[in-house]
């Protein structure tokens, strides 16, 4: 019986060309979104390649330059001497730390357009190179991208609601509900028979498209953990879709007319996709206010001034702490490079607490969002989609932590050589520390995505359960 009804329903849907329109709409928007995402990925890849090219040429220049200066064929000042570690570590020898876009980056731009994906690490303090923001029209940052994740978060639910808001109410309004129920079938089963073809149709569309577009060159499936992440992307898409279908059934089960259903569902869409996120955003900002960064600029300034004033004194203390770094011969005024080491160190130490306070507030916001995201499936899905695509703030922090370690390695290489007043040889250029980004463990990502999946399936199940019960009390005749 169920199967037969489903077949009829499918014929009904086919007759008004619904499948065609849905396929066309979701197909075009998904394809466009993925193409858009892959444009952004290639833009990042090209920029990274240009930076690496620049680095290769610069280091090659150093290798050529050093022997010339050693041989006395070229005159240089203390600021530009390619043999001096203080001059080289500050810029000419600097290397890039890079977080390449993830293999599935084309699926969601997420936060990746807001945070820098490469830095030029120097012996200078962190704040001199951390704010390497990509150029983008701020109006576009405000707008957000038309990517596959946008299609799934905003448009996909609307397609679902558009084809199921009158699932039961239309039958009643058309007078066919009582007729259908005079057959040996209960309303829940009838609803199921009408629902399943729609679920199959609407949900399979983005799933097949995601898989197809990623396989057809939109993504790099050889990337570490790409298979499992793509599978989770699919699972989350399905769960998100099921939630909206469940909502449509529950609203239908109330027994109101089609127009009311449409209004209520539009309102719920607005609530979950726009209002709850906006209100949550406001709430987390109120709970963990992040002061304007001008406060940090001032702290940096004050610390820098203090450190510069006490430069010589700081250096003496620094060398007391690190006697192994003291220059071989005593005497003579400390040079600029040596002083700078101590000043940088002191400034960074003084600013760190302020920086930590900012980070703690942002972390507090994130923790609160993580806790309360389950209030809206859209937030859960957004975070999960960003995670799959490697475009989350979490991946950025992961990168930042590695960049931090690398910055220390860089200093550990240069600072002792600066203090010991050593000179670099051409061969030393190849010994400068190098950076390689390590992707997050896929198990960790999968764990987070698993929680998100539960956070979608559970509310979907609850809503569906409620709808199922209400269907049992549905006023089949009358209004």
């Amino acid at each position: 019986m169920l199967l037969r009804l489903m077949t009829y329903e499918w014929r009904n849907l086919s007759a008004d060309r619904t499948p065609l329109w849905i396929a066309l709409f979701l197909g075009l928007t998904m394809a466009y979104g993925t193409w858009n995402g892959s444009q952004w990925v290639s833009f990042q890849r090209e920029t990274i390649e240009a930076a690496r090219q620049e680095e290769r040429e610069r280091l090659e220049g150093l290798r050529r330059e050093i022997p010339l200066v050693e041989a006395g064929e070229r005159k240089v000042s203390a600021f530009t001497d390619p043999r001096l570690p203080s001059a080289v570590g500050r810029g000419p020898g600097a290397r890039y730390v890079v977080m390449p876009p993830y293999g599935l980056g084309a699926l969601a731009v997420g936060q990746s357009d807001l945070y820098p994906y490469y830095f030029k690490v120097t012996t200078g303090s962190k704040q001199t190179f951390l704010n390497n923001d990509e150029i983008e029209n701020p109006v576009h940052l405000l707008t957000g991208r038309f990517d596959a994740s946008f299609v799934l978060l905003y448009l996909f639910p609307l397609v679902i609601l558009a084809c199921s808001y009158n699932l039961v109410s239309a039958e009643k309004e058309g007078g066919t509900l009582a007729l259908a129920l005079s057959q040996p079938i209960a309303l829940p089963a009838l609803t199921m028979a009408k629902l399943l073809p729609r679920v199959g149709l609407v949900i399979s569309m983005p799933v097949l498209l995601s898989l197809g577009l990623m396989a057809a060159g939109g993504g790099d499936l050889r990337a570490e953990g790409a298979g499992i992440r793509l599978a989770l992307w699919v699972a989350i898409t399905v769960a998100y879709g099921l939630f909206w279908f469940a909502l449509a059934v529950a609203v239908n089960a109330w027994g109101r007319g089609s127009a009311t259903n449409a209004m209520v569902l539009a309102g719920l869409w607005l609530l979950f996709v726009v209002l709850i996120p906006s209100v949550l955003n406001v709430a987390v900002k109120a709970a963990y206010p992040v002061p304007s960064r001008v406060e940090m600029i001032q702290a940096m300034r004050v610390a820098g001034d203090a450190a510069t004033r006490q430069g010589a004194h700081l250096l003496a203390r620094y060398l007391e702490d690190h006697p192994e770094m003291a220059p071989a011969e005593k005497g003579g005024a400390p040079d600029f490079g040596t002083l700078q080491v101590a000043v940088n160190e002191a400034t960074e130490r003084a600013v760190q607490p302020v920086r930590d306070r900012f980070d703690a507030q942002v972390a507090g916001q994130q923790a609160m969002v993580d806790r309360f995201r389950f209030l809206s499936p859209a937030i859960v899905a957004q975070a999960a989609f960003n995670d799959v695509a490697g475009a989350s703030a979490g991946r950025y922090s992961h990168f930042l932590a590695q960049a931090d370690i690398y910055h220390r390695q860089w200093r550990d290489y240069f600072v002792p050589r600066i203090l010991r007043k050593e000179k670099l040889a051409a061969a030393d250029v190849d010994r400068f520390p190098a950076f390689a980004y390590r992707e997050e463990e896929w198990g960790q990502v999968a764990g987070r995505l698993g929680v998100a999946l539960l956070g979608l399936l559970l509310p979907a199940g609850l809503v569906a359960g409620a709808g199922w019960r209400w269907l049992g009390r549905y006023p089949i005749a009358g209004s």
Partner: protein
Amino acid sequence: MKMTLLIARKEFTEMLRDGRFRGAGAIVFTLLAGALLLGWQSHREVSAQHRSAQEATRAQWLQQGKKNPHSAAHYGVYAFKPQVPLSLVDHGTDPYTGVAVWLEAHKQNEFKYRPAQDATAVQRLGELTGATVLQLLVPLLIVLLTFSAFSGERELGTLRQLFSLGVSPAELAAGKALGVAAALGVWLVPAAILGSVAIVAASGGGEVMAAAPRAGWMGLSYLLYFGAFTGVSLAVSAWAPSSRVALMVLLGFWMMNGLVAPRVAADLAKSQSPSPSAFAFAQQMQLALAKGSDGHDPGARAKALETELLKKYNVDRPEALPVNLLGVRLQDSENHGNEVFDESYGALWENFAAQNRIHQRVAWMAPGLAMRSISMGFAGTDFAQHTHFAKAAEEYRRMIQRTMNEELTHRAPKTGAPHLAGPELWNKVAPFAYTAPEAGWVAERQAPALGVVAGWFAGSILLAGWAARRIRVV
């Protein structure tokens, strides 16, 4: 006319009695009031922070002790972007542009620290501001209030009765529109009063006078925008075969207008007028700085300058010059740098401006784009006004450099012995004062967008009248 008012009164009373409208209106009002209060609070905090930072950076400049003028130039000052009172209604691009810029020697820096970087990804789903409520939610409320204006009457069979009484379609449409307007006014007028109070409370002395014409323009534009939505909704309601279809079409229009069009416009703008990567931008600027616009390297440029000076003063060695060569050379390199910066940043900003002009053109398809641009513009938070501030800050930087280099040129010993300046020189640099542009300046730049909103308003009225005249009675 009398009939129109009668219909308006009936609509108004009916809406006020409708629990759904009361609920939806109350939600919109609460969100709007909440957004304005939060905007006011954050405006108060942020502007206090910026004011005290601006004072601190000034004090640091004045109390930097005795040093070489060029060291002072390197030390520089910070410029912090002020928050104008109306930004509490519309943050615009403020979260996505940096809050401060370091004004130092040799370099025009970029603004750093975008506030959005200190927020979570949820911010990208939506930010609760007055602008969000006014641009997205109020139009949705209008749609919900009006989608069944004609189709509902027809479905109930009352449309035929109305026309049999001699009511003309135009009167009916006007009455419905007035009724909706009055009902919306119940919520929006108090919100507007609340907003005005917040703006006045947020304004320092003199700022109110500057904010008033901006607020006037902004309010008028929003009224036209709401009017356009009402007209379109009435037209669709008259044209659609059923309320259900009218609602679907209008929700589709609302979604395209608010969600899809801005993104499509952004993509279109980027493909028409692509911006460079930060890396390419910096590299190209570096290259121009190193080479010099005239194709000479700085060494040759400095040599040429020296020869020129020697010839000008008719002496044979730099020490005999009446001016300090280093000072002249530093200013010369600043002049060269300024040319490069004018060209590079000029091109970049023109690129963004061109992109934003494309948005305004696309706005003929979606009035929300024009409204967004107008709203940000009069709130003082659009990119044009960010650039206006950036230019003022850059002028100030150049003034500092000139003052320091003139001191070196005319006062520093020619022998190259150290020259130290003190507070009297630091005091020669006046504190940084910035005045935001007037409302007229904004109106001029927003003219295309204002045209779009006014055009939509007029067009939607004509459309509603036309659709009402052709309405099927049964």
